């Protein structure tokens, strides 16, 4: 008979908040007393607040575990009421993340998409050319500018209203990079329309891209079917969240 000492490992585990940072007017970074040395960029965790809900968040860091949370609704607002020392339950790491390729990195982040891309940029290291494009509606929504600079990447900023960086969508900054770096891989995380635009752009130009999709996660381990994306039964929680698209011709 099995004695599962680790039986709880796939159940939510107690974690304590050890540090809190404000990233912008509605986004905070939480550092937890949890260490997942095996986790890698693009993977996510499920955070549970008893009596509230359990929601997915991309890892910003694995050792210690960090997540950045934008306060947009019931769960995320509740997260923002927590203080250092408070408890949040987590399970993970879940999903398949980015698969680092050789060659230059072009990261494209919309909204909280900065989280997994900052993790990835650090992981890839400064032995290669690394670009990050962060896009937002307006200046105050921008995230992680300092963090990315500290990581030593080439930072490109776009806003829909031109209040910071280049005026326009992330594509404004992306197109010249794609021209200049045909062997680069585009790693992206952000809203669905952004990802769909990137997919077309990259496929037209025969450039490898890896896109992290958002979807309604329930089980997080490929059983309930609630996170299917697209028509082919692709599961964000198990096949993804990162979709790896190789260029048609190499």
């Amino acid at each position, binding site marked *: 008979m*099995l004695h*599962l000492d*680790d*039986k*709880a*490992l*796939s*159940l*939510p585990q*107690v974690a304590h908040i050890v540090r809190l940072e404000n990233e912008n007017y509605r986004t905070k970074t939480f550092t937890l007393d949890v260490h997942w040395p095996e986790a890698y960029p693009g993977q996510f965790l*499920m955070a*549970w607040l*008893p*009596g*509230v*809900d*359990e*929601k997915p968040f991309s890892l910003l860091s694995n050792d210690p575990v960090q997540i950045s949370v934008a306060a947009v609704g019931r769960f995320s607002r509740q997260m923002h009421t927590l203080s250092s020392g408070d*408890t949040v*339950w987590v399970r993970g790491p879940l999903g398949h993340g980015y698969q680092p390729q050789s060659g230059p990195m072009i990261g494209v982040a919309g909204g909280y998409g900065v989280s997994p891309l900052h993790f990835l940029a650090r992981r890839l290291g400064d032995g290669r050319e690394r670009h990050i494009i962060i896009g937002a509606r307006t200046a105050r929504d921008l995230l992680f500018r300092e963090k990315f600079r500290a990581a030593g990447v080439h930072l490109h900023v776009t806003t829909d209203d031109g209040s910071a960086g280049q005026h326009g969508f992330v594509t404004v900054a992306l197109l010249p990079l794609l021209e200049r770096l045909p062997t680069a891989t585009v790693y992206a995380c952000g809203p669905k329309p952004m990802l769909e635009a990137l997919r077309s752009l990259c496929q037209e130009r025969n450039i490898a891209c890896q896109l992290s999709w958002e979807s309604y*996660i*329930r*089980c997080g*381990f*490929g*059983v*309930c*079917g*609630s996170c*299917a994306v*697209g*028509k*082919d*039964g*692709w*599961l964000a929680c*198990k096949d993804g969240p990162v979709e790896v698209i190789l260029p048609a011709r190499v």
Partner: protein
Amino acid sequence: MTLQSDCCGVYFPNPIVLASGILGTEAGLLVRVARSGAGGVTSKSASPRHRTRHPNPTVLDWGYGLINAVGLANPGVAAEAPILRAAKAELQRLGVPLIASIFAETVAGFAFAAETVGRAAPDLIEVNISCPNVGHELGKPFALEPESAAQVTAAVKKATEIPIIVKLSPNVTDIAEIGAAVEMAGADAIAAINSVAGMLIDIHAGRPILANLEGGISGPAIRPLAVLAVYKLYEAVNVPIIGIGGVSTGADALEMIMAGATLVGVGSAVRSRGLEALGTIATELDALLAELGYTSPDDARGIAHVTS
């Protein structure tokens, strides 16, 4: 050796079918599971009207199995029908039957749901009677009493020409009695078991882990309960039985068949063995049957019913 199986006149390339509620939310997923080797696929149970979801957690892995309270969240039969139609078109090409699962909170609701999904022409309709009967003074699930189970069965039978499978709950004193009642009421087949009622408490939070408090236990933990239910039903009814509960290997599937199952449902094993679990289990079953000298699952069906 052939794994071909017949259930209510429907031909299954092998007896391993996807259980309801696992991956069955979208046409693309049903097709994907069929492509990976399943003998049949069941859609997630749909109800007359859209039902919103519970907050999470709704599905967790507790080590010895899963616990879920997905709460029968579903888009409703009207939205489900096109999903079923899309799935059916592709499944037909693959030669893999589609079982459409339905539930409702009233007898009339069941009839309506059956009629609606029936228009998408699934090969079989599974009638999941584990949902509480809102008409009943205590709101007990239809599956818990022979009378209410039989009522639903008779109503669905009238509403559709497609053969129906009635899916029973294990949370009863005598499952064979319920099985006999639904057979009498016209069930073409019986599926057993649905998940077993259970609860987990998080000791740090001091409260049940599922937002719904209690949930359904599935996976390896419930296998012996499912085997016994199938064994008892096989002695109580003459219609084919779809044996479900904790099956994760070819050996487990054969155990169900020996207990009396015609088809074997697989759900939680997708957690431990991936989406390919069903195809893998079918392959293992094939090898085992050959090793043990059987020429088909039919040969082995029910042989555990020793008379000595």
